[in-house]
């Protein structure tokens, strides 16, 4: 593939760069460290209409400026992206785009993250020569949850082409033509595709906005953390936007091996929902028949004292991190409890046809493979608890359980982030941080171990499960507890088949596949 014959050398803005034959000038420029401004081109959308004319560059020997997004790099080519002609043309495109564009940046959700705003600022035209009345298109709704601000639209057609090329659903079209052109749904069709939310992400301006985000946060008011979507077993890489310790938006984060530039709408909603409900904010222990708050030290020594080797059962969640599952397994081992089960909600599978490895998968949990790796097994039923036995629950909401589930247990340890109804029977509740409140890893459907980062602060004294479970083990006579996620991961990687050799820092932001030892006998897909 990479033999010299397939390589061509060209000069872009004075930088000599060698690229594979067939590379476009825009991509070649990236290799040379030159960003060519563009709107209609999107690296994840195959069709390239070259219509925004923003990426026009000057090529020596070519009479006309050429769109670098489609023009193939040629051997010996000398390209100028910032020559006077190219700059003037680009400046002119900005002027054209601003003719009818409203000056509503102060209330536009894209402000601060807007390619039009950025380039307009860069070219620095302070006054418009446009003396005519601006066209007014107003606001419309293109989907149940997506608004279209027609005045802001620059008709780059990225949204239309996402639906056509990636979703395979021609629900969006350009209506009208010329300066009256705007985006609309195809007559008689609804934009209800499970991946429709991506049209908002690809919009280079503020024309398409999720209704649940509109006017909610300014770009500069939000913090952003890399996360993994917990919506299904795909494990889409996401960027979590947080304002005042609340998740206000989830956007896909590029990972060519998993989700490319995309994610589904189910995933977008699920993280925002994660902080709802009544949280467990402090450890609680049952004293005198009532659950009473306690300090961590008090609670952990109390639990360690009361827990004893006995027969018992465990229920975990496939939404818990590997680290939490690993330390839960360690606790169960210490108590002599075998097995343990988890439930997984099932849903309809939807494929993004233009990038078919990306699916909203039927298993609506992020860490099914991780739970299996730690010897928990899928079960549709909650285990029966025999009188006086130990019950350990990690993260499962025990929905559908009888009101007195676990009440007959000798010791019912509930480890979770929320005060779910079933927890009222617990002997002790240890408050856990939710996934966006902690760091850790998931194993996705194909065995890719992926890291997620912390996006939120936990309420009260809730802590990551792996952290307090390792301390509980210390109380039970195990090694000293871990305080850093990297240490927790290292202990787990040493002890878990398939994870040998993986390191926390080595996983980076793209993740790594489990080794063969971690793969099931029959491939999952």
């Amino acid at each position, binding site marked *: 593939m990479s033999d010299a014959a397939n390589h061509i050398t060209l000069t872009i803005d004075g930088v000599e760069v060698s690229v594979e034959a067939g590379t476009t000038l825009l991509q070649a420029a990236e290799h040379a460290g030159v960003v060519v401004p563009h709107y209609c081109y999107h690296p994840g959308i195959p069709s*390239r*209409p*070259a*219509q*925004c*004319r*923003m990426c*026009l560059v000057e090529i020596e020997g070519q*009479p*006309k*400026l050429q*769109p670098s997004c*489609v023009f193939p790099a040629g051997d010996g080519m000398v390209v100028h992206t910032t020559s006077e002609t190219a700059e*003037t*043309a680009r400046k*002119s*495109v900005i002027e*054209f*785009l601003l*003719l*009818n564009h409203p000056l509503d940046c102060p209330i536009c959700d894209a402000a601060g993250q807007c390619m039009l705003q950025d380039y307009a600022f860069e070219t620095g035209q302070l006054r418009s*020569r*446009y*003396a*005519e009345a601006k066209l007014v298109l107003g606001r419309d709704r293109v989907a149940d949850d997506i608004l279209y601000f027609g005045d802001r639209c*620059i*008709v780059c*057609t990225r949204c239309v082409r996402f639906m056509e090329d990636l979703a395979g659903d021609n629900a969006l079209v*350009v209506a*009208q*033509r*010329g*300066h*009256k*052109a705007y985006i609309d749904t195809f007559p008689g069709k609804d934009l209800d595709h499970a991946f429709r939310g991506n049209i908002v992400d690809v919009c280079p301006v503020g024309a398409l906005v999720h209704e649940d985000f509109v006017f909610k946060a300014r770009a500069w008011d939000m913090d952003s953390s890399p996360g993994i979507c917990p919506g299904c077993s795909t494990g889409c890489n996401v960027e979590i936007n947080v304002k005042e310790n609340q998740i206000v938006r989830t956007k896909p984060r590029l990972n060519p091996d998993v989700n490319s530039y995309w994610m589904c709408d189910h995933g977008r909603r699920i993280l925002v929902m994660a902080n709802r409900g009544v949280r467990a904010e402090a450890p609680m222990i049952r004293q005198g028949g009532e659950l009473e708050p306690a300090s961590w030290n008090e609670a952990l020594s109390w639990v360690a004292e009361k827990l004893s080797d006995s027969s018992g059962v465990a229920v975990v969640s496939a939404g818990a991190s590997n680290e939490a599952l690993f330390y839960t397994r360690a606790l169960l081992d210490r108590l002599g409890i075998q097995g343990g089960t988890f439930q997984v909600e099932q849903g309809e599978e939807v494929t993004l046809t233009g990038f078919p490895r990306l699916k909203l998968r039927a298993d609506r949990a992020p860490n099914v493979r991780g739970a299996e790796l730690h010897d928990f097994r899928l079960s549709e039923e909650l285990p029966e608890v025999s009188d006086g036995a130990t019950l350990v629950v990690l993260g499962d909401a025990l929905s559908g359980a009888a009101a007195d589930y676990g009440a007959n247990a000798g010791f019912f340890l509930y480890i979770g982030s929320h005060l779910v109804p079933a927890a009222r029977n617990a002997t002790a509740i240890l408050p856990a941080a939710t996934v966006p409140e902690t760091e850790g890893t998931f194993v996705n459907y194909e065995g890719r171990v992926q890291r997620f980062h912390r996006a939120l602060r936990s309420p009260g004294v809730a802590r990551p499960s792996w952290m307090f479970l390792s301390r509980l083990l210390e109380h039970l006579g195990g090694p000293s507890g871990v305080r850093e996620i990297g240490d927790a991961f290292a202990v787990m990687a040493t002890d878990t088949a398939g994870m040998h050799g993986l390191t926390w820092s080595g996983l980076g932001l793209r993740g790594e596949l489990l080794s063969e030892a971690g793969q099931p006998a029959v491939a999952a897909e």
Partner: protein
Amino acid sequence: MGYPYSHDLEVGTLLSRHFGNEKARTLEGWKELGGYATLPKALEMDPDAITEVVKNSGLRGRGGAGFPTGVKWSFMPKEPSGAHYLCCNADESEPGAFKDREILRWVPHLLIEGCLIAARAIRAEHVYIYVRGEFFPFSAILRDAVVEAYEDGYVGQNILGSGWNCDVTVHLGAGAYIAGEETGLMSSLMGGRAEPWIKPPFPAQSGAFGRPTTVNNVETLAAVPMILAEGADWYRQWGTEKSPGTKLWCCSGHLERPGTYELPLGVNLRDVIYEVCGGAPDGKKIKAVIPGGSSTAMLTAEELDCSGCYEGMAEAGSALGTASPIVMNEDTNIVQAMRRIAQFYAHESCGQCVQCREGTSWTAKILHRIEEGDGTVEDIDTLYHLCEQMTGRTICPLADSVVFPLLSSLDKFRDEYDALIKR
């Protein structure tokens, strides 16, 4: 019989010979007039030999660009790996042009025969005749002719017993200027919006339905049967070295005898306007002429002494285009005329390229303001700037189409703009 006028300069024996003769519309009548005589010859020829004859004849595309037809055909793959298509461009959307519709309505079988021969040459087995959306009556005549040709075995399976199959489909567009641009035409034919696409891929590599395609104008294809019948040298007796043959001239505007005339290429434009069409009526003087359809540069009355051929018109600073002179007399308000042209292109811009989408409508609005007496001196600078930024910056030449007349009107009739601009 002259149609509807005739003149000594008019050749009148080639394309337009049977214009006005209803007999020519029916297959029976057409055969009596000598129709479909060349097709059997073409069926016996090697496809490349047909292309060679057309190449030697020097026939150039009559849709406006003037690209050599035989050369265009030679770009098609010689060994088909699947379907090839011929698209006949009958969109005729250029304001000022009204020649293709005359061929469609008077000699539809001439066009069909031309299409079949061309299809044979480019190894296509399906011809799409893309007819402008507004051409209801003309497309009905053409459709009747195609049906007749199918019935008599000139079109369809095993044509004239040769074993060669070729279908002809008449497709009515939905009415968009840009469907006359070849890639816009194919986009529309495939069921999409008439949006031109960036080349490469060129149509001969990947055109309609992703297959190698050639797009030719109606007048071009109608000239093919006679060239093949009589030979390349015969065709070269008309016209110039670089622009051989005859051309249908569509003369409109302030003229004594406007109309479609078949004249040899290289005819003097002044003669076309004053001799053939009788100049402006009521003894008025001519102020300006847009010689090749609305998208070409204006000429003043003093500049009309030029050769009416591709190279001659380019030399005169304009273009032959579709050979459709629009004549404006001394009473014409050039700013108003230019505003109307700009408004047309603003309306017809497909809206893909930013310069065209925004530039055409901005141009029209500025011109409108000047026309209303609200213009400023800066507007002239802005118009010049727009001309610069709308030239050669877009996928197709629609934006350039405004620039040619606009720039020439600014250069040549600046006094008219100045007179309207408040001092």
